[in-house]
């Protein structure tokens, strides 16, 4: 009886639909780089299994491209009263709850593709290294607003370690 976990918290806030393009772009670039490397090894380096590597790279890239929209849609976050909820993943689902008082640092990052699309990534850092919560693909104004709001919340609920 397969059963997916799901939290009954209502509507998740999703990342920008444009984020799919970022995922696709990065998948394509990685795929091209890796296939280039395997072609080089195959034809120039004389590595007999180069074509196998190339095939694997191509197949993985295509699968990644196919599921990219779903992966991007799976990312969600939600501001609750006392904590931030975050989810991502389809096959490997992951739900994280970070109490506002635990946030030590909030980072905004912009990659080259994200910047072209006006998107930004928001990263939350707590005292635990394993927290690892990053909400990618937020429209820049929304990211800045969210950051300010979270900093404010974190300050009002500041706790020790």
């Amino acid at each position, binding site marked *: *009886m*397969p*059963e*997916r*976990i*799901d*939290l009954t918290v209502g509507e998740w806030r999703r990342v920008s639909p444009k984020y799919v393009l970022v995922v696709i772009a990065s998948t394509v670039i990685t795929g091209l780089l890796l296939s280039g490397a395997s072609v080089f090894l195959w034809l120039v380096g004389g590595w007999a299994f180069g074509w196998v590597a190339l095939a694997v790279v191509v197949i993985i890239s295509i699968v990644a491209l196919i599921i990219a929209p779903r992966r991007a849609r799976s990312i969600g976050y939600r501001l609750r009263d*006392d*904590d931030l909820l975050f989810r991502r993943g389809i*096959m*490997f*689902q*992951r*739900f*994280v*709850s*970070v*109490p506002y*008082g*635990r946030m030590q640092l909030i980072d905004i990052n912009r990659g080259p593709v994200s910047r072209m699309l006006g998107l930004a990534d928001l990263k939350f850092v*707590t*005292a*635990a*290294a*394993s*927290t690892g*919560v990053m909400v990618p693909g937020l429209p820049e104004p929304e990211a800045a607003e969210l950051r300010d709001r979270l900093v404010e919340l974190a300050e009002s*609920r500041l*706790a*020790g*370690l």
Partner: protein
Amino acid sequence: MTRPDGRAPAGPPLTRAERAAERYTDGEWHRLHPATPLLRGGIVFIAIFGFVLSNLRERLIGFFVGTPQYAGDPLDAIYDHGWEGWALLGVAVILLLCFGAFYLSWRMHSFRITGDAVEVRSGILFRTQRKARLDRIQGINLVRPVLARIFGAAKLDVSVAGHDANVQLAYLGSSLADGLRGDVLRLASGVRAAEAEAAAEQSSAAPGEVSGQAASRTAVVGDLVGRRVNEFLAPELDPNAAPPESVVKIPPLRLLGSLLLSGFTVFVVIVVAVLIWGATSGAMWLLIVVLPGLIGSASFYINRFTKSLRYSIAGTADGVRVGFGLLSTSNETLPPGRIHAVEVLQPLLWRPFGWWQIRIDTAGHSREKGAAGQPNTTMLPVGDATDVSRVLSLVLPGFVTEEHREVIEAGMVSRGRDLFTGSPRRAAWIRPLSWQRTGYRLVDDAILLRRGLIWRSLAIVPLARLQSLELQQGPLDAALALAEARFHTVSGPVRPRLAAIDAPNGVRLFEEVSARAVAAADADRSHRWGRIAPDEPRTAPAASRTSVDAPIPLDAPRTEES
């Protein structure tokens, strides 16, 4: 800045060490022990001295006994050219420069302890200044390396959260360091201001003792050597600092046994078996490759044994105090609420003897290594069930009480299907052996995670310290309707997580823990553990602390160790 005025109103007078230390906590800059540069560079000095001595050995023997001269020696060259005067002058200048630099570095190295921070500044050309906020102190470590111990000096290592985040007062006089630790902890605990009058009262009652102290000082000066020896042989933990009931000691034989029955021994046995097989089947090269490593393993045992020897753990009013070490000793105090996760574990080989180990996660790490060169995260290297319950009641004083004894015992030894919320039968696909034992339980403000059939482990995370919480489900988990919960704490050896729990249960756990963690963090006041909320009744800690199992009240007024 204010003078240290935190005195428990009804507490006994200060110890002599604390009285000596008191003048250092006035918020002014003070200098360290005059021998500091010598002790810091101690090993280098011994090395240089040894080098010079070994190089001049022939010459010294020659000087006294008279052996044939060797030509071409720089010393001979000097002698032949009649440059002795210049050479001596050069040596004198170098020595003078060294001493000048030492003196300067000592002059420039100072510390101060104010009402809310410990500060150290040092450096001649490149000045550094470090400041640790008292309410952020994660632990105070009193370290006595062998050399410093001979000179009666010690260093005080005040750690705050973070990597390499400690303020080190190196070196101080031994008794001064002890007193300063007490003072810093008292200031950090937040007991102050309100109790100022009580302190004044006490100091007026003190003169009688001061004269007694002066009288005893002459005797002490006369017996300096005796005092050094005493200091050297003194037990790691001042017997007056903690009630004897709360002290745990490890018999050397048990320590030895636990080392011999460790995973490392299994590894060594396998290596030896391979060696014997290699030797009999003619592969002698194996011997050459492996033997050095095998000899090295002996040093591992010896090192670990001597370092863990004289291990003692005790509860004091300012938190848990852990001491260990035979020659170089270390003695760390972890104030209440600084322990982020605790794990009680038992490898299979230890089970016949009923031995357990306790490890913890803390945010601050003293730069000094703990027993066997590990960071100070092993609270109990080896102990039986009684020791475990004692140590647990020290590290989690608010939680490990009589009413939770049953739960903790179940968490340690039970095979499953009891007080804990267990995993369903289908979890056997992922945890074929331990699925019955796998379980969790939420008690008050702590979560207990039980797992492992062969390698038993019980992790306890106080929710007030939880940083974040994660629920995971991979494809295999999804097919079996299972989930994995991960509790994120500061990094350390304990990684509280529980795989193969029932998915709906996991969701419920996630919801409940995330709500309770926020509430627990809000209610937590342990960063200033000595401060009493005005409406709370004052309890006498001495009475409750005489019982081993009773918790040390986090918010009780501090009593002085006399």
